[in-house]
């Protein structure tokens, strides 16, 4: 997907700032105004059950939390850093080992204070999910969101690392 897609660029920069997402290897696959897909390649480091080679539910939780949280950024008119209020996850089947997992997220309601999201994790067919979740995020307001973070996600900072270049034109 081209860098010119603002939703894709924003999602990619946001995830690039989250250290643990880099450790896991989470990548943006698709992004637009309505939905977002993240990809996580299989890694033996993610295994929760050495007998079966199945990845741990926590890896899926992290992927879903990240997918929903990134979707929130793309669903709001202005950059807001929204903390997760809660996540409710159903693990409907074990992920097949050695295959990537994908998280497809959407924000189905944006209210004044809360953003409601849902997400499906699958391995190629969203109709045959590995896990489903709903997550709610609290809006803290654009004015309370850290300016460095905002500039880094929007790509308006010269250097896209927070803290290094804080006199950008973003604010």
């Amino acid at each position, binding site marked *: 997907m081209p860098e010119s897609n603002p939703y894709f660029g924003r999602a990619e920069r946001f995830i690039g700032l989250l250290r643990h997402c880099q450790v896991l290897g989470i990548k943006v696959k698709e992004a637009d105004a309505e939905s977002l897909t993240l990809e996580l390649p299989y890694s033996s480091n993610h295994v929760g059950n050495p007998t079966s080679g199945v990845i741990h539910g926590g890896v899926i939780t992290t992927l879903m939390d*990240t997918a929903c949280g990134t979707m929130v950024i793309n669903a709001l008119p202005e950059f807001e850093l929204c903390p997760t209020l809660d996540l409710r996850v159903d693990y409907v089947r074990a992920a097949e080992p050695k295959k990537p997992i994908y998280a497809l997220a959407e924000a189905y309601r944006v209210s004044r204070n809360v953003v409601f999201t849902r997400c499906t994790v699958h391995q190629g067919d969203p109709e045959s999910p590995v896990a489903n979740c709903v997550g709610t995020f609290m809006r803290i307001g654009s004015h309370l969101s850290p300016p460095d973070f905002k500039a880094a996600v929007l790509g308006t900072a010269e250097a896209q690392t927070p803290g290094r270049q804080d006199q950008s034109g973003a604010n």
Partner: protein
Amino acid sequence: MMKFTDILKEAHETGQFQPVVDAIPYANLLGLEFQRFGSDVIFRLPDNKDNIGNPILPAVHGGVIGGFMEMSAALHLLMFLDTPAMPKIVDFSLDYLRAARGGRDTFAECQVIRQGSRVANVIINAWQTRREDAVATARAHFLLAP
């Protein structure tokens, strides 16, 4: 190398679960540790920059907190129930109460609310400085039958 099923079996016989934790790659990725105090166990997630999400606060990634709590609940079940196999998580409901700050260790404690023949209901509390000031609270169902 010993098979994981044999490691589990041995841990049940000896009551020593460190080899089980050592054999689970995701537990090592997070850096999970535990300490038993008689019939109590406290799980610990040591401060680790690789677990950070929000770089500004900084805060531990919410997914890491969730993963740590899920892993703690599964290990808790392994330790206290007569389950020879790794319990399978069915669902997980997680409330985030405050940011888990980077630079601090995070702890978790589990309580088995109900254990049936096939399913167990577990609640998990996670905190950093004071147990009363939880960073997250969660509830999970696990399938116990292999």
